[in-house]
């Protein structure tokens, strides 16, 4: 009798094992037909760079796809996600934009990017003031960069592009100091992994979970559907928090705002500011104006998002200070006499009327970029930063 039961269950198990892959293929077919998803694109647009770590590959082109976007990524002849730039012409005021995915305008077409919108906002103010100047904002930002990379990227591009000003966009979580020691494993234009200088390079096995996940993310819409659900609803975050009891009462998103600040973060900020100090010294030496723009995270603008993140983390309201990163950046700017532009007020106002961030992704969308650039362009003029404090190209006092 017992043998018979085991036999029946074994038969069922085998049947399910055989049928499951077919059913998963059906799930794929069903998803593709009725619930189409954007699979991840193979972002094979990167190359190693001895100075910065990595940059975009000149002339590379791909589509960046996600749940909420599908945009063309086209890299120019010198490795920037931007149009072509020749030698600077007379009457042109050139600004070099440095930053991470926020400034690179992740998920946005280049026409709506931070660089293009800032260019339009500044140009509009210049036109209104009767200043005959042509503003050019060059998008030298790249997803994955941090202040170490900004400093090195300045070195790489300043001599080629000859900017008049440099704007660095700092996010509240831009305190990662590790990029100075980071080496990148890049194959066929894709960043496959990282390792630290002096450490043994980890070479991935031919078949590994990571490779399988990557393959699925490029090819399976059903996988993308499940993955997006698990990630965007913070289920993965909750599971990892639950599995790691040490992580209880913490949330990576809230780390920059926690009071008192952890020793590691304070140290990381100190290192980060040292890179910015180096950058400031170099721009001063080159006679180029350095400007810092503080880019707020979505939870600083969207109160509901903050409330949800706080509730999910188990932290109390008094354990965080939402203005802490801004204050640290402000203190640094004051100390080194670097102009600071802050779009928070404008973003909060606009976000009440229309969403300024992707729902799941957390990066700026066109409305957010527009609000931010209009606000910082006004602050730029009010602070009388170049070209407004320069007599060059002015036809009116």
């Amino acid at each position, binding site marked *: 009798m017992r043998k018979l039961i085991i036999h029946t269950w074994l038969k069922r198990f085998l*049947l*399910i094992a*055989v*049928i*499951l892959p*077919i*059913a*998963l293929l*059906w*799930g794929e077919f*069903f*998803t593709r*037909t*009725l*619930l189409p*998803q954007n699979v991840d694109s193979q972002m094979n647009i990167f190359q190693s760079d001895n100075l910065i770590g990595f940059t975009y590959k000149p002339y590379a082109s791909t589509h960046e796809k996600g749940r909420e976007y599908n945009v063309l990524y086209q890299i120019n002849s010198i490795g920037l996600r931007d149009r072509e730039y020749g030698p600077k012409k007379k009457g042109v005021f050139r600004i070099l934009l440095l930053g991470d995915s926020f400034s690179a305008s992740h998920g946005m077409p280049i026409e709506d990017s931070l660089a293009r919108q800032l260019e339009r906002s500044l140009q509009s103010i210049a036109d209104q003031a009767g200043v005959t100047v042509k503003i050019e904002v060059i998008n030298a930002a790249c997803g994955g960069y941090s202040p170490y990379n900004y400093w090195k990227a300045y070195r790489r591009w300043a001599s080629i592009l000859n900017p008049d000003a440099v704007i660095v966009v700092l996010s509240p979580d831009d305190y990662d100091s590790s990029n100075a020691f980071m080496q990148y494993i890049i194959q066929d234009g894709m960043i496959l992994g990282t390792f630290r200088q002096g450490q043994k390079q980890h070479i991935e096995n031919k078949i590994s979970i990571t490779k399988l996940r990557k393959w699925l993310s490029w090819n399976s819409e*059903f996988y993308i*559907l*499940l993955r997006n*659900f698990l990630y965007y*609803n913070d289920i993965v975050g909750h599971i990892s928090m639950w599995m790691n009891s040490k992580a209880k009462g913490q949330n990576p998103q809230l780390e920059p705002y926690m009071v008192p600040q952890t020793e590691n973060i304070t140290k990381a900020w100190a290192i980060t500011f040292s890179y910015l100090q180096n950058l400031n010294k170099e721009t001063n030496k080159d006679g180029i104006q350095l400007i810092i723009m503080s880019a707020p995270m979505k939870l600083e603008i969207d109160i509901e998002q903050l409330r949800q993140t706080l509730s999910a983390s188990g932290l109390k309201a008094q354990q965080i200070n939402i203005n802490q990163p801004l204050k640290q950046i402000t203190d640094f700017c004051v100390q080194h006499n670097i102009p600071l532009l802050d779009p928070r007020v404008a973003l909060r106002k606009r976000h009440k009327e229309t969403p300024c961030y992707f729902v799941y992704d957390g990066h700026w969308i066109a409305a957010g970029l527009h609000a931010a650039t209009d606000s910082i362009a006004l602050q730029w003029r009010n602070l009388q930063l170049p070209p407004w404090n320069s007599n060059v190209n002015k036809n009116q006092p």
Partner: protein
Amino acid sequence: MLFNSLIFVVFIVVVFLVYPRLPHRVQNIFLILASYIFYGYWDWRFIFLLFALTIINFIIGLKLGESGKQNEKKFLVTLGIVSNLSILCFFKYFNFFVDSAASALAVFGLHSNIPLLQIILPVGISFYTFQTMTYTIDIYRDKLGPTKNFIDFALFVCFFPQLLAGPIERATNLLPQIASPRQITKAQVLSGLNLILLGYFKKVAIADTLAPIADKIFASPDLMTSGQLWTGVYAFTIQIYCDFSGYTDIARGIALILGFRIMENFNAPYLSRSITEFWRRWHISLSTWLRDYLYIPLGGNRAGNIRTYTNLIITFLLCGLWHGAAWTFIIWGLTHGLYISAHRIILRGRKVDISWPINYSRRIVEFGKIILTFHIVALTWVLFKSPNFTIALKYFEGLFRFQQFTGFAFSIIFAGLLVLALDLAQTWLKSQTWLTDRHEHTAIRYLVAQFLFFSTLAAAIAHVGTITPFIYFQF
């Protein structure tokens, strides 16, 4: 509480865990409590309405049972019908009648000063008032004796699986099941789970996926090409079937797990070969209700052809009005009344055969009839879905502007084929729960079950954060 909400999943798990452990009488009390929680979760104030209806009909039922005189019985049943219909009319039709009367008076230059009221339509009111009426009418007709147990009757009125969108059960079927102890077998539970899986597949994977397509196209038909408008027609035709029959399947599945057998409401309606057959397969509980409690009392087909057609048209007009307080619904019902009357003329006294399989020697003709009936029904859904006549007319005009036949979405064909496959399987195997009832072809049954599961899972994930209420809740 919606069947496709997370809170319902928690609710039903608790019900399934507690219910089988209780003795029969306590089970009934527990189900009443669960049903009131289920209904009150939407708006707690309306549980008093449900309770009032229960008391009124229970007392009238008792009085009907005690009464020996025909006149007194007639008075009591009329009182019961008027009470139920008054409640229904007040909540559902008051503003519609006032508004229509004002418009009619305005034609003659008169102005009405009756104000419109801010009335919230209690969800499922058309279903439970009609169900409750079967009780008093059946007692009057001596088909049923009045129950003296208030708990049993209260459960009959508020039984949560079919409370919001039917099937409109008959007291003769449901009350005896409530009164006697129920057996829950493993086969029953499996069949119930089969129905629930099927229901969620239809609702979540098909109806909710097609809903945004249909909504978008019906919102601005003048901006759409003919191809897109046909896509909209097919999308809504499949959506409304899957939405409503999906609800019924879930309701029947839950009821089965609780030990109740409630009536079938759909029997592959889009495989009908005529409009008469369609109404024997679509919303069976309503069409048989209208036949038994309206069409036959009006005289049915016993008083000559003209009277028969008049009765049919009146029945379908009221069927349209039952669906919603709007002229588009009334005209939708009238159109179906005209179709049925026309079909009756064509039939010339022949009976309608709804049995399957179809006559293979005439398969092309039979297939043609299915396609024709499907399109007649599908085009009439335009009236049902459109918010007003202007949009409906624009829609019809655009549909036949074939010079712009672009933008037809082939995903609709895929969804339609899936539904067709399920209906064909149900028809041929003569069972809706063939996945669990049958013992042969285990591999195919497992495969289909996993197909349904993974499709529903994918769709549920894709629709996270957007709960689409069942269409028939508004009726």
